């Protein structure tokens, strides 16, 4: 009997330990910067929280010193709950690599200019966007001036000045600062502050996407000291900005609470909401269930396949806009058995290097069918790399013509003489006699849409006598690094399928993917995104010119040339354009989808009825 009792006692002790642990683990309140905290804690204390000790005195006592005529606070703060499926790791915009982290930091941190959903730059902290026309940009593009709006202060009350912008540049370009994206900042020769509201930037050489720099600014007074940003408290709980909200608390992996910034330049009209709670909901299915039941108000980043089930639902609104990304096939032009060759002309891919084969593959794909069947017609057929934006290319959609495909393959020397349904090389240009027209297609595993797309492609290719076989890999393997031996970087593949997209300024993306100097090799340490090893002089020249002038008209013309060469040579075969899709409850107003940036770009306008 005693042994049983003892065993049960042990179990009971464990239970007691659990309850103790449960009682003690509360949300970690960050070491609050004293200035932001008093204003912030007043809001939730005024809610129904029964156990909160300061509840009785809530409405009067912690009245913040800096808000004199505080309007009578309603019992419940207006809270909007935003569901993300990815948990942000760090919020410092210069270290973060995730979109989810930027969604959160954009509510707190602002920059000089930003991009609106139509793809136009608009001023945020600057008075106007610098252009050649208004004289704030020199003719050669090397000198850019920003006038900062008057009276802007950080949320802790300190004034925002040119020194903060200069400091941002200095930190980002300090070696080993941990900054992830330094391109462009390293082309700046000097940032001069003649007066606190005027920023003068001088570039060493022309950097075409200059307006994308300083889309976030670091607070000098709060972070100076250590130059290694990875040690900063700013990255997590110490995030400080001029934006409409301030970070109140962050429960790692669970939720992030933001409350309105009373030092925001448009306060008290903006922000319209009192509180934004970012909830981490790792399963998209659960996210969709929660927005249906109303437990969350906004759900981030859905796909075209999620749209139909919400079209009939009166409580949920689907916000959709075409985005810059396109799902495409990358067709390797170099010999896949070689490790990172930089000479595709002498080591061509035995099957894909022949242009007629690539053209045939494109003629054999019914892109409209893919869009209609898999994407419910919710997007458009892919035509070019730059499908929207100021630099949009004008390329007609490809034709679906399986007969023409078969003709081209016959011409290219691929015929099916052994009757197995797959063509072999009989007099083809590069492959050995008798080699079958068999190609490996790879994409990220675990993605239902992509798997279905691959199945359709396999069927379509079978129809013209080409065999695609599928070998999917996890996305961390597909997008792996040069040093980890990733096959994409080293050129060991036939066909890859995934989405990539450019920023509002396409230069670095276009150059990285399509310039002949962007082939990753041993010599340049795997730098470059030209995985298919495409060499086209006319396109490369056009991209050089596009990056050398601030004149947008000229640049657009050059990109058109590059797009035409891509459409002709088909190193990338565009399947369909991607859309940016978000869901909100129908009582949420002011939400506007932004395919060029983060969805929280106008968070100050979000309202809940």
């Amino acid at each position, binding site marked *: 009997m005693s*042994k*049983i009792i003892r065993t049960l006692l042990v179990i009971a002790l464990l*239970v007691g330990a*659990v309850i103790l*642990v*449960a009682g*003690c*683990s*509360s*949300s970690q309140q960050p070491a609050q910067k004293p200035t932001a905290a008093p204003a912030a804690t007043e809001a*939730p*204390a005024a*809610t129904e*929280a*029964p156990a909160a000790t300061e509840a009785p005195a809530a409405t009067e006592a912690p009245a913040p010193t800096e808000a004199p005529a505080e309007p009578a606070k309603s019992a419940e*703060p207006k*809270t909007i709950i935003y569901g993300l499926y990815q948990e942000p*790791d*760090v919020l410092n915009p210069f270290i973060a*690599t995730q979109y989810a982290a930027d969604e959160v930091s954009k509510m707190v941190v602002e920059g000089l200019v930003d991009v609106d959903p139509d793809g136009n730059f608009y001023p945020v902290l600057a008075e106007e966007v610098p252009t050649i026309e208004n004289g704030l940009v020199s003719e050669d593009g090397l000198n850019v001036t920003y006038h900062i709006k008057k009276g802007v202060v950080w949320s802790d009350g300190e004034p925002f000045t040119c020194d903060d912008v200069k400091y941002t540049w200095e930190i980002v370009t300090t070696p*080993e600062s*941990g900054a*992830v*994206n330094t*391109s462009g900042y390293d082309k700046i020769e000097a940032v001069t502050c003649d007066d606190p509201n005027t920023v003068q930037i001088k570039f060493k050489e022309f950097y075409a996407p200059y307006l994308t720099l300083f889309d976030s600014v670091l607070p000098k007074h709060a972070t100076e000291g250590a130059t290694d940003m*990875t*040690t900063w408290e700013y*990255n997590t709980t110490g995030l400080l900005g001029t934006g409409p909200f301030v970070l109140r608390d962050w429960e*790692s*992996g669970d939720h992030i*609470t933001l409350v309105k910034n009373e030092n925001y330049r448009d306060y008290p009209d903006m922000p319209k909401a009192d*509180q934004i*709670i970012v*909830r*981490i*909901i*790792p*399963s998209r*299915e*659960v996210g969709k*269930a*929660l927005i*249906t*039941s*109303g*437990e969350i108000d906004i759900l981030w980043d859905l796909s075209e396949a999620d749209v139909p089930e919400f079209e009939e639902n009166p409580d949920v609104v689907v916000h959709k806009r075409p985005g810059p990304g396109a799902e495409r096939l990358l067709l390797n032009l170099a010999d896949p058995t070689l490790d990172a060759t930089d000479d595709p002309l002498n080591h061509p891919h035995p099957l894909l290097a022949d242009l007629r084969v690539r053209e045939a593959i494109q003629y054999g794909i019914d892109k409209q069918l893919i869009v209609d069947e898999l994407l419910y017609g919710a997007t458009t057929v892919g035509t070019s790399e730059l499908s929207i934006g100021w630099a949009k290319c004008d390329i007609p959609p490809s034709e679906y013509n399986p007969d023409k495909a078969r003709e081209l393959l016959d011409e290219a020397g691929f015929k099916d003489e052994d009757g197995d349904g797959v063509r072999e090389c009989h007099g083809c240009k590069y492959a050995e006699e008798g080699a079958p027209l068999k190609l490996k297609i790879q994409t990220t595993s675990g993605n239902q849409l992509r798997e279905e797309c691959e199945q359709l492609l396999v069927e379509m290719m079978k129809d013209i006598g080409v065999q695609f076989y599928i070998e999917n890999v996890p*996305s*961390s*393997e597909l997008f*792996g*690094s040069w*040093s*980890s*031996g*990733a096959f994409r970087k080293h050129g060991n593949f036939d066909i890859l399928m995934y989405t*990539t997209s450019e*920023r509002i300024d396409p230069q670095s993306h276009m150059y*990285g993917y399509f310039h002949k100097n962007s082939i990753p090799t041993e010599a*340049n340490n795997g*730098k470059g995104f030209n995985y298919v090893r495409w060499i086209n002089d006319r396109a490369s020249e056009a991209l050089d010119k596009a990056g050398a002038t601030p004149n947008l008209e000229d640049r657009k013309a050059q990109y058109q040339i590059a797009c035409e060469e891509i459409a002709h040579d088909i190193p990338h075969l565009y399947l369909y354009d991607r859309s940016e899709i978000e869901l909100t409850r129908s009582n949420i107003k002011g939400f506007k989808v932004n395919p060029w940036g983060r969805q929280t770009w106008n968070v100050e306008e979000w309202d809940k009825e």
Partner: protein
Amino acid sequence: MAQYILRRLLYSIPLLILISIIVFFLISLAPGGPMSAFEENPNLTPEDIVRLEEEFGLNQPIYVRYWKWASRIIVGDWGYSNVTHQPVLQEIAHRLPNTLQLMLVAFLITLLIAIPIGLYSALHQYSLFDHIATFFAFVGQAIPIFWFGLILIIIFNVWLNNPISPHHGFAWSHFTDCADCKPLLPGGGMAPYGVDDPTLWQRIKHMILPVTMLAMFGMGTYTRYMRGQTLEVIYQDYIRTARSKGLPERLVVMRHAFKNALAPVVTIIALDLPGLFGGALFTETIFSWPGMGRLFYRSAQRGDYPLLMGIVMINAVLIIAFNLLADLSYAYLDPRIRYD
């Protein structure tokens, strides 16, 4: 006995070293890594990516990287996460209480329900109760746990409402048909959002669905364990002796059969305990529970070596410790077993 324990502890040291070497090399050999997170980001140029690879020290040979990690952890420096730059121990310490809270409660409920059911089932073998219990045990083991969690959310969060509403009071019709009613049970998280100091009842409400999901599977398993062990015991001679001596059935069962049937089950419980620290990835994903499972999965996906090694080493230590505990508890419960 003390010698035995000492010997086991000494053996565990080279075992831990071996485990750390094998895991480190396996992780390094697996494709992917921290860079893959950066690759898809259009903000980064090729120059950035090369520079980052250097900063992460990824172009150094494996044994150099292993040695760096091992030499630091020996002195207690568990390192910093590659991804969040927070100390590894701090990251783990944030998540571990959440995981323990959920797993221990679920485990306890599993045992409290499964063991009596298993015992009763065995004592009344082939009765209606036995058939029903066995059937549900199989169902519990067979149901895909991920799907079950989603179903729970759909039923209790989307379909069913809280029949008590501040505006209309209580009404049965509010269960399903009430425009501004709140859902019956929350669909995730540990506590209601925006509330600074959640009450115990609020925390419990948030635990109901995930605990149900977790317990479902365990109940099936433990019911069958207990039933099997009890069946083995009640046909033994000493049970027949006890009955023929005239002992009331209650004493025969509780004092003799139950104790002996429980001993192997306790061993299995002790072996399952380290698993509680690992969290439950599916449950945490479905119910947005910030626990160790998701931490482990996230660090594996993003190649966050320091954090991954930290979690693995903790798990290794726990497994070794609980294995020892299981062996010792068995010796404690069954006097016939002796170690030397």
